[in-house]
């Protein structure tokens, strides 16, 4: 084989480069690296604006799903969305002018948003005292690194406005904070692009990570007749993946960042060794032309799926759902868990509750944006993280599942500050789940009432107190089969051998605090397959019922929630309904 001469240069032949392995031309037809569909490409600098512009242009011009979402959000795609109350004017692209805070006063325009973790960095904040100064100018080098990088990148992308939480919300004004927190949904939904410091653990760490060097060998390939030269490289680079940077990144652990990611139409993730693009149409990494995941991929991120569902799913209205389930005012509600929009909400809560939050009292405000978006589909009233028309199923949250070992500690921790009523999952810190099979007939008549005291006019924010008044069958836990002292003693040794969802069991939110004789059990729903044709024999678990564990909280007829339980259906025969209040 002849040694390749260095005088060959690439040249375009038609739409692709031609290729042949050597001058002895084993292949006569045209062939190229593109024909081979090599899916990986070189990774540029960490501030590769051209790549981001290509992604953005492609998304705006060719992504049907993304444009469909734009049409849904705006009455027509041409209408520019409103600015948030304040944005940062990033100054001139050459950096000759400093950024400043801009009060938008109802103007409309395109802007970027920043999603980041404050961490231990000294974050520059807008306060009542410095807002006038910030409106004149903000000294760029006084900002933390992630803000400087975000402003630099916004300039390079050719945009003028950027929304950053600590600068655009007056941090020492509770009134302004609560008002702006309630508008968080619109801030991220209307941004043209969200810059996400996905792996930065604090504001001191910027968006851009240095790109590590790797060994790479270029292999020239050319056609038999000479003239056209192509090449590809073999490299030992090991780049951080979307999974490492985004799914397992810093922001994937933070509660506030869930809605920032789900509500943003487009996100640019700054990873450790490459950029990642995420929009409704899919996810891409800088190192590959191939999409990482399709929007409807089964194994995709829960966040990506939620975005899909929130933006693109046409759910039936609540009335239609109830009609399907043959519910009317006279019949008890038959809600099958997972049907209708509520199953999606429980998925959101499961994902959200496993994330960390610095201030426990922000647990509901940090979800307000998602709740507002969800309300568009459910059309329902929202109360401290639950939806009123699905109160029975919504009450059945727990820290553990019925499959958990009996000596498993509860992952829930009660915050030092009161955050929500006892019936709300937001009253605890820690990952919660809805350990339900399919709900059969719900035993609570649809005449429940609710009320709560929100600390703000916005009902999606912090809740100080709240109650639910309902009629239900109430029985002392210690008197039920499966919870009497004798039964528990007799089954102590072999209870672990039962399938965990096939034996009566109580899951306390805080185990060890209550005796079963002091705890009341409220029947919520029977377990069932939901099938009209099932005769509820073998294979169907209709002999069980889901219940709420309650403890008297002082006033007559007033209880607080302490857990949930799986009880035998036979325990409820002959028990009359009584009206109670859960606070």
């Amino acid at each position, binding site marked *: 084989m002849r040694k390749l001469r260095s005088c060959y240069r690439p040249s375009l032949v038609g739409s692709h480069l031609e290729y042949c392995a050597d001058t002895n031309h084993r292949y006569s037809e045209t062939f190229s690296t593109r024909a081979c569909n*090599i899916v*990986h490409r070189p990774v540029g600098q960490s501030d590769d604006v051209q790549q981001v512009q290509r992604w953005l242009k492609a998304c705006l011009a060719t992504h049907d799903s993304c444009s469909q979402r734009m049409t849904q959000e705006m009455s027509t795609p041409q209408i520019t969305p409103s600015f948030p109350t304040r944005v940062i004017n990033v100054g001139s692209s050459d950096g000759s002018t400093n950024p400043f805070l801009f009060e938008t006063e109802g103007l409309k325009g395109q802007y970027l948003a920043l999603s980041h973790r404050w961490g231990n960095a000294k974050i520059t904040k807008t306060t009542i005292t410095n807002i006038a100064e910030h409106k004149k100018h903000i000294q760029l080098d006084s900002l933390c690194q992630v803000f400087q990088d975000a402003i630099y990148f916004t300039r390079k992308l050719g945009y003028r406005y950027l929304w950053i939480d600590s600068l655009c919300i007056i941090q020492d004004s509770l009134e302004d904070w609560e008002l702006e927190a309630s508008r968080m949904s619109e801030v991220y939904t209307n941004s043209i692009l969200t810059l996400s410091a996905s792996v930065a653990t604090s504001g001191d760490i910027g968006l851009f990570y240095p790109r590590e060097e790797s060994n790479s060998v270029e292999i020239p390939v050319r056609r038999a007749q000479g003239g056209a030269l192509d090449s590809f490289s073999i490299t030992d680079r090991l780049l951080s993946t979307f999974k490492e940077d985004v799914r397992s990144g810093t922001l994937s652990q933070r509660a506030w960042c869930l809605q920032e990611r789900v509500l943003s139409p487009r996100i640019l993730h700054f990873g450790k060794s490459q950029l990642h693009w995420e929009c409704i149409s899919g996810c891409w990494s800088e190192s590959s032309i191939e999409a990482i995941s399709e929007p409807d991929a089964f194994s995709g991120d829960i966040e990506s799926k939620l975005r899909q569902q929130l933006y693109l799913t046409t759910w039936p209205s609540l009335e239609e759902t109830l009609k399907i389930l043959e519910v009317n005012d006279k019949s008890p509600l038959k809600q099958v868990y997972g049907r209708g929009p509520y199953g999606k909400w429980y998925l959101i809560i499961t994902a959200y509750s496993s994330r960390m939050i610095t201030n426990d009292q922000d647990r509901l405000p940090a979800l307000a944006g998602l709740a507002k978006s969800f309300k568009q589909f459910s059309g329902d009233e929202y109360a401290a993280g639950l939806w009123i028309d699905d109160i029975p199923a919504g009450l059945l949250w727990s820290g553990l599942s019925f499959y958990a070992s009996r000596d498993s500690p509860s992952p829930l921790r009660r915050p030092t500050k009161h955050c929500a009523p006892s019936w709300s999952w937001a009253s605890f810190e820690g990952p919660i789940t809805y350990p339900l099979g399919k709900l059969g007939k719900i035993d609570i008549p649809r005449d429940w009432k609710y009320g709560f005291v929100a600390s703000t006019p916005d009902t999606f924010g912090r809740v100080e107190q709240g109650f639910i008044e309902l009629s239900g069958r109430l029985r002392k836990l210690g008197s039920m089969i499966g919870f009497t002292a004798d039964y528990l003693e007799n089954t102590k040794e072999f209870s672990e051998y039962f399938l965990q969802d096939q034996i009566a069991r109580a899951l306390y939110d805080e185990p060890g605090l209550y005796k079963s004789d002091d705890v009341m059990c409220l029947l919520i729903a029977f377990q069932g397959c939901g099938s009209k044709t099932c005769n509820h024999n073998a294979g169907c678990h209709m002999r069980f019922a889901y219940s709420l564990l309650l403890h008297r909280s002082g006033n007559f007829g007033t209880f607080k929630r302490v857990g949930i339980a799986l009880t035998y259906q036979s325990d409820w025969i002959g028990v009359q309904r009584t009206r109670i209040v859960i606070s």
Partner: protein
Amino acid sequence: MLLLDLMEEPKPTTINNVFDIVKAEYHDGGVFQVAISPPKSFPACSAKPGRERYIAYGPGEIVPSVAFNECTEDCNRGSNESTIATGSDIKAFECGKSALFEGHPALKSEEGRKSPRPTKLHVQPLGNNSYALVGDSIEVRAHRNRKTRMLDLGTKTLCPKCQAIDLRKLSEAVEEEHHQTFHELSVSAETCRLCALLLESAGNPETLVPDNSHSIRLAGIRSKSGGLSHVQLRIPTLVGDLANKTQDNPVIVRCVNLEAVTDHR
């Protein structure tokens, strides 16, 4: 390698699921011997706790451990004493042992009936209820260090073997022969930049005992869309002496994936 991914099964899968698929894949009949290597009952002996690997980490390397080999040997030896199955069902099977069975009678050829020699297949549990059927070889995936050692490749050229790399074959995921022996690759690496890169990626040569009876090969790895994503270096080895201890002498191939990259702009 036929990857039998059974993770989507609702219940923990048994090796019988693997056999069902093997039967479907090798429907030309005959007797099959399936060895589980390493046995499922063998505890994970990874230096990293929680990672269900049956191989031990050296510095930047993965090699089968001695205990792994011995346990594999014991299990496979034990299974060979079992009786050869005559029906279509699996007669002798226990996790960690090999099984002998015949293909579906309806599909079994006349030749297959006459031949007493079993087709030897290896099944490798990958954890999470998934199994890899690796044919007559066992693949050891080498994990490279995240910190790349920069090589001085500027002064080197490409050897004829590297110049002749056939992109079309790689893109069609066809294995291509590279150097005949590991020694040849090492010598070529002195002057060839790609061979130097391949040698570096293969890991510490001291942990590797090459099997010179098989050549080093390059294989294209396809992405999910069917495009070419990686070039896999495949080095036949005798690492851990596993080949000498199992009776059917499987080839152990150390596999290293390197990215294939081209500028799409």
